[in-house]
């Protein structure tokens, strides 16, 4: 293996890891606030990619405009999903809301087949993004560089919001004690909506970037990444944003390296996420960066 090939694998690992991290954050933030696993999150990822696709093909928007509009629409969709499918069940037993999440996921996938069609669609990748560039010994497509760059930018903004703004402070408060937050006059519904909005926005961005990197859409395209990113969030310690990012990059990195170094095993690439999950949970049940959840009275 040459150095340039190794560097190339690293770029690929960073870009896949970024995509996983972007989706995993949505799982972890929603879990942190509501103790809910949003099974429909992978389908939100799918939806973002389709909306951008139609923006480019049907409305003939420039790709960046389609990207922005799709992100905003998908974020609004995520907020709406919470209002319709989860909010009415917030005070019900945990299992009801989980079932609602599973139902929402199936519904979105079926609607996807119905509206978008089951046949895969080829994505017209913008020329600027599919160009091959050379940096020193590494040659790579622009999109593989853009993905980690934008992801790091978005992560920086997210960290700022959560740690330095009033809304972020309220998010952290709601995630430990909803009732005490209410007593501080925090509008809990607004914070929950905001959280779903951010999670869906990041998933939409991930979905669109995914569709530029692997330019094919189908209504079930969110299932496997959704599952893996849920695993990434659990590996990192669900509820922890840093953990989700770590888990995402870990999964992305391992997946790329296995295909690169152990090509005979590459057929099992999807299985490694589960193996890693089991190993991590055996060693550290709360995930790598997770803290023990003290049960509230």
């Amino acid at each position, binding site marked *: 293996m040459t150095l340039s090939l190794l560097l190339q694998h690293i770029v690929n690992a960073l870009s896949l890891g970024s995509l996983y991290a972007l989706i995993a954050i949505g799982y972890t933030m929603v879990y942190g606030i509501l103790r809910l696993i949003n099974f429909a999150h992978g389908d939100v990822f799918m939806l973002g990619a389709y909306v951008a696709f139609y923006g480019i093909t049907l409305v003939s928007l420039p790709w960046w405009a389609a990207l922005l509009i799709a992100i905003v629409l998908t974020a609004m969709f995520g907020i709406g999903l919470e209002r319709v499918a989860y909010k009415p069940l917030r005070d019900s037993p945990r299992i009801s809301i989980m079932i609602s999440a599973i139902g929402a996921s199936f519904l979105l996938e079926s609607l996807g087949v119905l509206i978008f069609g089951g046949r895969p669609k080829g994505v017209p990748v913008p020329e600027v993004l599919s160009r091959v560039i050379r940096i020193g010994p590494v040659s790579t497509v622009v999109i593989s560089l853009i993905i980690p760059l934008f992801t790091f930018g978005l992560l920086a903004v997210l960290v700022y919001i959560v740690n330095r703004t009033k809304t972020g402070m309220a998010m952290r408060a709601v995630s430990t004690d909803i009732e005490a937050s*209410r007593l501080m006059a925090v509008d809990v519904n607004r914070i929950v909506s905001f959280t779903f909005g951010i999670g869906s926005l990041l998933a939409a961005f991930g979905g669109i970037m995914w569709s530029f990197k692997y330019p094919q859409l189908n209504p079930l395209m969110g299932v496997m990444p959704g599952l893996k990113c849920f695993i990434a969030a659990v590996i990192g310690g669900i509820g922890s944003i840093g953990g989700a990012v770590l888990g995402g990059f870990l999964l992305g990195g391992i997946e790329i390296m296995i295909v690169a170094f152990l090509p005979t095993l590459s057929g099992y690439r999807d299985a490694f996420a589960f193996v890693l999950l089991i190993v991590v949970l055996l060693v550290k049940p709360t995930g790598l960066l997770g803290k023990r959840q003290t049960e509230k009275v």
Partner: protein
Amino acid sequence: MLEIKKLSVHYGGIHALQGISLSVPDGSIVTLIGANGAGKSTTLRSIVGLVKPSGGEIVWNGKTISGQGTKEIVEQGIVLVPEGRRIFPNLTVEENLFLGAYARNDKPGIKSDMDRVYELFPRLKERRLQKGGTLSGGEQQMLAVGRALMSRPKLLMMDEPSLGLAPLVVKMIFEIIRQINAQGTTVLLIEQNAKAALEVAHYGYVLETGRITLEGKGRDLLNDDRVRKAYLGEGQ
């Protein structure tokens, strides 16, 4: 002025409050004493809208607030220091205080109120960048009170602020309550420590299994035989 009229609360089949009436005049300290499970916390939780009453009415300065959301009620100047303190363990002391001022937007006012809280509780100032969860029980109670003051409450309600604290800290908390009241804040206080509560309060109510059985001036209740027997552990 807070008025509670024939307030009734059900938890499923349990009739926790069975039509209680009480009033808290402006500028006073009123206490509600009673045994475990009498319905004291339920009363305060109904006032801030965390529990929906099944009957009766809660009126704040002439306006019915029962049925309103917690956020609106808190924004009208009623604040609760809840049972068990409920500070945010993952937030710093300073962030906890900022959250108390969540409904406000006057930065300079918030800053000066924070200085006032630090003056009241110098211990909190030393620990301002420490996570709330690392504080001792007494310090957490100070933080809970300080956090409540940050909203500039007109009515401060406290649910067993002395629970689990050392006698010296209890004394300090009651001293602070007196001080806060002297500066014009109305106080509604719930206590197991009936003696301390009745000593500080202008008026008191005794709650027994969802009904008010006795009321009177703090001093009078302190000298009442029934109260002495049941709540002050005197006489057989």
